[in-house]
């Protein structure tokens, strides 16, 4: 196979390994420290963990979530959980009268204990989210974040109750439906959410749907109150997240939220070449999105890897891309 990359394919045995050898003709070959890289496929994540512990592999690109507690207790810094370019959020149908007031949506967001969801429901495989665009995108800088990100959950519940009162929603008078697609973690997330909403006097019921029809149902403006959805970025740029809620994006704007200011900001950003100025405009758009809250961001996705102490040069990043040409092995 002809390549100008840092490595050449030497051997490929199915179910065994792909062996790559350093390319001597690579322009920066002098700085490529690892001569041979073996990529080993694992059908079973637990097998990779065992071989990692036995010192036979230097890195596993995926984790066995059932053994998260064990790995946390025993592997220390070798267990890497890094923010990934994805967000788990709750679309709210803003057209419904009971959910039309942004204050109601904001109150719901305040009452959600994101740390509990991330640590207990998702066993630390998700990270609490206080913005829609995941952090760590190079051309975006600091995110726009929810103002109550640092507040204690009890204080937030009080603030949420006050906000509901201000919006004229009496305790116990609001009932909403939480809808999710089949999946153990989605179900548990919704059950926990239901409890959290009860704390601020909102009643809820949970409806489960089969996966295949679920996203189509949301796309077709289905009659829901609140659902769950996830978005994994195609590339590392805030626009790739924020464009979902432009008024015209009927395929992904599940809440059917229409905001002329938001659309104008997105248009303006599209026509701005200066990258910092563009980032500022997009940040303004995100701030508006978080203020209006047609969607409630609750968790960021994360990438999990095992990285041996002996493997240097592994840098966590939102794209979860790790080139061996930048790495080295300590003997």
């Amino acid at each position, binding site marked *: 196979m002809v390549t100008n990359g840092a490595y050449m394919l030497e051997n490929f045995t*199915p179910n065994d390994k792909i062996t790559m050898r350093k390319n001597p003709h690579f322009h920066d070959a002098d700085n490529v420290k690892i001569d041979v890289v073996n990529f*080993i496929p694992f059908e079973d994540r637990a*097998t990779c963990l*065992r071989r990692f*512990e*036995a010192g*036979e592999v230097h890195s596993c690109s995926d984790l066995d979530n059932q053994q998260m507690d064990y790995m946390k207790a025993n592997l220390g810094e070798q267990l890497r959980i890094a923010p990934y370019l994805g967000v788990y959020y709750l679309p709210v149908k803003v057209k419904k009268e009971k959910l039309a007031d942004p204050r109601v949506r904001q109150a719901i967001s305040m009452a959600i204990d994101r740390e509990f969801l991330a640590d207990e429901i998702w066993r630390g495989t998700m990270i609490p989210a206080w913005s829609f665009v995941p952090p760590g995108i190079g051309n975006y800088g600091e995110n726009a974040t929810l103002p109550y990100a640092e507040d204690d959950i009890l204080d937030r519940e009080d603030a949420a109750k006050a906000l509901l009162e201000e919006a004229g929603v009496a305790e116990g008078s609001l009932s909403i439906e939480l809808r999710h697609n089949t999946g153990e973690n989605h179900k548990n997330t919704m059950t926990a959410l239901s409890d959290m909403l009860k704390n601020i006097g909102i009643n809820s019921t949970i409806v489960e749907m089969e996966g295949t029809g679920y996203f189509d149902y949301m796309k077709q403006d289905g009659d829901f109150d609140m659902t769950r959805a996830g978005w994994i970025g195609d590339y590392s740029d805030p626009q790739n997240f924020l464009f979902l809620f432009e008024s015209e994006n009927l395929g992904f704007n599940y809440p059917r939220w229409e905001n002329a200011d938001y659309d104008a900001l997105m248009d303006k950003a599209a026509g701005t070449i200066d990258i910092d100025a563009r980032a500022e405009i997009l940040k303004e758009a995100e701030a508006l999105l978080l203020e209006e809250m047609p969607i409630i961001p609750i968790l960021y996705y994360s990438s999990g890897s095992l990285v041996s102490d002996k493997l240097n040069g592994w840098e966590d990043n939102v794209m979860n891309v790790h080139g061996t040409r930048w790495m080295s092995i300590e003997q």
Partner: protein
Amino acid sequence: MRGPGRAWATLTGQAMFAYVLRRFAGAVPTLFIIVTIAFFMIRLAPGGPFDLERPLDPLIMKNLERAYNFDKPLWQQYLIYLGNLAQGDLGPSFTRRDFSVVDLFRTGLPVSIQLGGIALSIALVVGVFLGALAALRQNTWVDYMVVGTATFGITIPTFVIAPVFSLFFGVMMGWLPAGGWGTWQHMVLPIATLALPQIAIIARLTRGATIEALRSNHVRTARAYGLPSYVVVGVHALRAAILPVVSYLGPTAAALLTGSVVVETIFGIPGIGRYFVQGALGRDYTLVMGTVVVIACFVIVFNLIVDVLYAWLDPRVRYD
């Protein structure tokens, strides 16, 4: 008493040769029926190899279907497949685009045969020895030990033994690799995992059959002739006692030599055991068909070997 050696001598002649030939001729239609049923059965399963979460562009789909003859009626595809099969061509793999099915078996089969062959030999030698020992020391502590361990060995499934071995010897003790393939050290744990339940089964079979054989007329006659007890047991009793083991070995050998899904997955071994499951789940039609053909051949060949061995061991069996 007729000596077994003489019986064999009469059988090695024409009758024997004709018998084997007849069996091989019979294997062809058997294989044909298996291939036919498998071919149409896998096509009945919903979905196809190119159905992905994100649907393919219809034009690309059409091209793919044309390239793999999927646009033709099923009976034509079947005839094409049979034609290729007759020339030893099992077709391209649908899910592993860089390899043909023959490529996959060429690299994977030797691994599985090596692993299964060694495990089978060890199981046979150790199992028969333990079983005979238990039978000779019936109702002593030796017998109880063997029977107890064997029962225990049969009840623990490989998907428990394999990770426990890997964890204990690989991770905790660090004596052997926890998984992978390449050196003899890599083979120890998977072979032990494969052999243990077989040792247990073979020991139990041998024990039961030996106890029965020791009470049989020809052994009593041998004893009466005053033959030394090692000859009585080793030659006369064991020869009869091994019969059920031999018939058990036919299908077992075919199964062991064509790889174990569990052992290969847990130890990360590049054999062919996983292809059946991976092929079926991925609707990799040719890979499933290839596995069916290979396993069917093994079963047919080993059943034949068993039948021939049977006649050699038991002169009452005739090739009619």
